[in-house]
């Protein structure tokens, strides 16, 4: 990475995630720009495509269709080297309030999918973004967490094993 840049680096804003209740997950982040522009980056597919799939996670976005209006549908299709089939995420928009609020459903998991509400609140030229996922039941959110962690559990423990071995070595060697 180029350490010296012409533009002074601004301190990075923090992303927080909290399980607010048995059925709710909340993500927050502040952006250094007006709500109008942050909202546009969520509501216009050509902008959305530029950030939704971070390069670090190995996914590629095959297609992205978004009809951002109340009742409109969206469909995102990804591929991953480890997945035999492309994965689709889809649903429809329940609320679209320009520059302040977006609400959509997540229907790829059937009736256990969450409803996502994103709010954009401008404060002195910056925007506080709050993404709120409401699951239909405690079991649905527990299930989402379990399916995300159980699959990788063996791998996680293997990594932990390596970490412990490395720590043991470094402690022993010093």
């Amino acid at each position, binding site marked *: 990475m180029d350490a010296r840049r012409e533009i002074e680096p601004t301190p990075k804003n923090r992303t927080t995630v909290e399980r607010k209740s048995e059925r709710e997950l909340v993500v927050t982040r502040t952006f250094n720009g007006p709500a109008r522009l942050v909202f546009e980056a969520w509501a216009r597919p050509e902008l959305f495509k530029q*950030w939704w799939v971070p390069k670090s996670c190995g996914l590629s976005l095959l297609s992205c269709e978004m009809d951002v209006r109340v009742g409109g549908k969206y469909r995102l299709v990804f591929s991953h080297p480890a997945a035999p089939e492309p994965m689709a995420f889809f649903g429809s928009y329940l609320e679209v309030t320009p520059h302040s609020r977006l609400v959509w459903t997540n229907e790829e998991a059937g009736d256990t999918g969450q409803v996502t509400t994103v709010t954009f609140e401008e404060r002195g030229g910056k925007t506080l973004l709050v993404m709120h996922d409401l699951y239909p039941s405690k079991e649905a959110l527990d299930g989402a*967490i379990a399916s995300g962690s159980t699959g990788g559990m063996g791998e996680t423990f293997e990594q932990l094993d390596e970490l412990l071995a490395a720590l043991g070595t470094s402690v022993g060697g010093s």
Partner: protein
Amino acid sequence: MCHILNHMVQSHRTGFDASFAALSDATRRGVLEQLGRADASITDLAGKFRMTLTGMKKHVGVLEQAGLVATEKVGRVRTCKLGLRRLEEEAAWIESYRQLWDARFDELDKVVGKLTRKEKVDGRKKRD
């Protein structure tokens, strides 16, 4: 960072071998998934996995030893639920979810930055 590592080492070193052994069995992984959806009695679990009560008791015992499952006897029924170690796993999932969104938002920062700069340039052009 060191603090996190120390905590991980202390909390996992003792339980690590037991956990690994507990997770090496497909039935036991299935039981954990099942308990992730809802608490269940040993009888329920034995039925779901088509096993004898004694067989399921053994599996649950291994999971309990590893801290992956906690059981509680009320009357004649022993109810099983996820243990403390699984709660740590929820925290780990939340952290990996946070990292995903953090990476996304770093990219979104760039998009917002581009839009902001473009607007400033366009604004200047309009005034000129």
